């Protein structure tokens, strides 16, 4: 017990040593702990990541493909669902000169063999140039792509790019328009509905047009036949549903192929229906009569006007092609398309009422349709005096688009309500546009027999198609060449409605500068060229539109026939 216990009291140096070791140990513990924490953290991160991937992550076999077939740009289909424009993946061949590894001269020769649009020298110039990228061919054929691929040159890039295809080629080309290199619309529906077609939210749904492919084809074919037959420089035609304002067919000739729109002439690209304005002549006369009837100027189609051989008014002279030289009724004036009679009716109607009616019919504004290529109406403007009122009354001195005319006929025969034309199909998504009343229903009804009379007994006899009850009006206007009216070159048109006892469709056909043939006995007036074409076109189109021919049905001709003298039977 008494023995000294040295261990009890440590020597100071030893004590210091213990303290140092403790410190060192604590430090090491600390460091180890930090290392452990860091290591644990990394492991935790990995584990968390693994758990997360296992729970929510994608599996390895996932393909980077869209699971729904949304095209790069929306389809355009016709009213029956037939595609008019589609976007497909097409092969594009591009050249990246920087990546070329082979012999450039040899490659240039091979390229010139495969794609002869450039010669070897041009290809070589491309290959040695500093530009990073050249498009060699867009929408290449698969055989060519295979051949290019076989060259095995990394500098030649083969890519699939979305490309706009118009399967029906020239069909309804002016309606559809075309797209530029970046895939944006340059004309027609492509331009008017560019946002709707390219927006990811809406492009999955195809855009349904009111155009019917079959009717469009029939109209195009009959018009081009007439155009060739009469050697006309252009033609145009439009078919409209008069109750909804839907444009069923619309064509302008010469046409172009929207697949290769770049190689078309400006004349081909020009839409004569919505963009071209023409003095359409006598096709205006029904409007004047309807205006006069509505205003109470003409109380009956039997109202008599004095129709001399020449009419001298306001220091000018009005001529007729078939002068009456006697008193004639409104029915006869209409039937024989008398300028003299119509001038008097227009004179009685007066400028202000005429203008007000034309305004209500939309004739003084740009034609109402979704397309952006729209022409501006040419009117006498500030010179619109009493004589101009007369000339406008028979369709001269005012230039409108053929679509204006079709809309006007639709207004006149659907019961008198103006509705803007539309290129989209009218259905649950696109309701009929609200209309505004222009003519009374009674006027609209009376005009039926009057226009039917023109076709059964008047200037439009060649436009009749048996059973289809066509009613309409011919129009021959002298073309303005070099600022003055030409005596020999005409623009002939026929505006008609069928079936006249229950009007459903309005159609306008127009020929630009038709020539006389042996069949027309030297005439170039509308009754000889565009009217027969109209007849053929209606007998083809009407059955497609569900209009059944019936020879026993006619509008109430008893309203007009008593006022027609037999002398009119030329």
């Amino acid at each position: 017990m008494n023995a000294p216990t040295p261990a009890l009291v440590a020597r100071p140096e030893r004590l210091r040593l213990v303290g140092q070791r403790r410190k060192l140990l604590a430090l090491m513990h600390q460091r180890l702990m930090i290392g452990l924490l860091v290591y644990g953290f990394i492991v935790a991160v990995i584990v968390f990541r693994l758990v997360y991937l296992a729970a929510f992550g994608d599996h390895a076999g996932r393909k980077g493909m869209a699971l729904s077939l949304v095209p790069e740009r929306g389809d355009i289909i016709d009213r029956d669902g037939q595609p008019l424009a589609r976007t497909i993946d097409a092969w594009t061949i591009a050249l990246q000169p920087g990546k070329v590894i082979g012999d450039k001269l040899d490659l240039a020769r091979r390229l010139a063999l495969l794609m002869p649009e450039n010669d070897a020298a041009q290809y070589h110039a491309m290959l040695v140039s500093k530009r990073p990228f050249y498009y060699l061919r867009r929408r290449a054929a698969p055989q060519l792509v295979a051949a290019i691929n076989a060259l095995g040159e990394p500098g030649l890039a083969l890519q699939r790019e979305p490309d706009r295809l118009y399967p029906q080629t020239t069909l309804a080309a002016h309606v559809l328009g075309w797209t530029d290199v970046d895939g944006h619309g340059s004309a027609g529906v492509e331009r008017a509905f560019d946002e709707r077609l390219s927006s990811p939210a809406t492009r999955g749904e195809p855009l349904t047009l009111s155009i019917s492919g079959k009717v469009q084809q029939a109209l195009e074919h009959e018009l081009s036949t007439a155009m060739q037959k009469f050697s006309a420089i252009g033609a145009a035609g439009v078919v409209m549903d008069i109750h909804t304002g839907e444009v069923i067919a619309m064509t302008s000739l010469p046409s172009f192929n929207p697949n290769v729109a770049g190689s078309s002439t400006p004349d081909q690209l020009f839409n004569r229906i919505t963009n071209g304005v023409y003095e359409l002549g006598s096709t205006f006369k029904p409007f004047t009569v309807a205006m006069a009837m509505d205003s109470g100027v003409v109380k009956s189609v039997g109202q008599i006007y004095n129709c001399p051989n020449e009419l001298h008014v306001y220091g000018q002279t009005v001529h007729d092609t078939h002068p009456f030289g006697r008193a004639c009724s409104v029915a006869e004036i209409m039937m024989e398309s008398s300028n003299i009679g119509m001038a008097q009716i227009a004179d009685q109607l007066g400028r202000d009422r005429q203008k007000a009616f034309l305004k209500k019919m939309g004739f003084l504004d740009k034609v109402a349709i979704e397309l952006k290529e729209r022409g501006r109406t040419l009117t006498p403007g500030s010179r619109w005096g009493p004589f101009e009122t007369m000339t406008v009354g028979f369709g001269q001195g005012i230039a409108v688009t053929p679509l204006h005319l079709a809309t006007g006929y639709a207004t006149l025969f659907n019961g008198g309500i103006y509705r803007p034309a539309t290129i989209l199909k009218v259905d649950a998504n696109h309701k009929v546009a609200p209309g505004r009343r222009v003519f009374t229903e009674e006027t609209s009804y009376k005009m039926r027999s009057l226009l039917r009379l023109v076709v059964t007994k008047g200037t439009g006899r060649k436009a009749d198609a048996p059973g289809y009850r066509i009613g309409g009006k011919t129009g021959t206007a002298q073309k303005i060449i070099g600022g003055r009216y030409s005596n020999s070159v005409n623009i002939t048109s026929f505006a008609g409605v069928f079936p006249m006892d229950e009007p459903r469709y309005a159609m306008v056909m127009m020929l630009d500068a038709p020539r006389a043939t042996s069949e027309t006995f030297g005439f170039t007036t509308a009754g000889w060229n565009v009217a027969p074409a109209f007849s053929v076109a209606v007998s083809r189109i009407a059955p497609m539109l569900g209009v059944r021919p019936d020879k026993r049905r006619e509008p109430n001709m008893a309203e007009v026939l008593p006022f027609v003298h037999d002398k009119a039977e030329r």
Partner: protein
Amino acid sequence: MSARGFRSVIMTGAVASAALGCYLISLRVAFERAELEGVETKIVLAQRDIRLLETEIGTRGRLAQLERWNLKAIQLSAPTADQFVDNGFQLATLVKPDAKPAVEVPVVLASLPRETAPARAESIDDSGAPPPASNSAGDLMHVASYRRPASPAPRLAPPTKPNPAVAATIVPAKTLAKPATKPVKTATADPLAALPSGASKAKGSGIATKRSTKEPGSP
């Protein structure tokens, strides 16, 4: 003590196996989802192919092309007002077979051997010579098969040829058959007049109808 000691181990094991089970289920679901996606991808690819093919066929058979074929080969035109019928009755009046006098007359000849069999058979048997039999049969065949251009020529030629050979025996037969052959001549003339009146029909249903139509005609 032991139970208490193993409790944590058991718990850990249970939790671990439960977690593993959950993970396996999740894996299974992921696998199924992947399969589904694979199928959906296939559907989309098929739809894309259908679209491409549709586009191609639509482009090849575009309306302008059909119009061209129609102009060159098919040559269909729009129906006229008279080609539309109002009701079934009107349609029935159109398909009613019209009376064909041209077909009726050859019948007389075709069924002639059967009715006037004694006269003919005798004459043929008497001669025992095949030429007149074959000749007359061929003659009949021509009429029955309604081959218009061929019939007049052989008709005129053969009777004159065999006549000298079997003149004696044939002559009575000829005189007997005269009333029957006479209408034949008008028959050869008639079909030419009524050219489009169903030459094909005369072949098939000719014999059947001939007899029935002949009876009211003979008395």
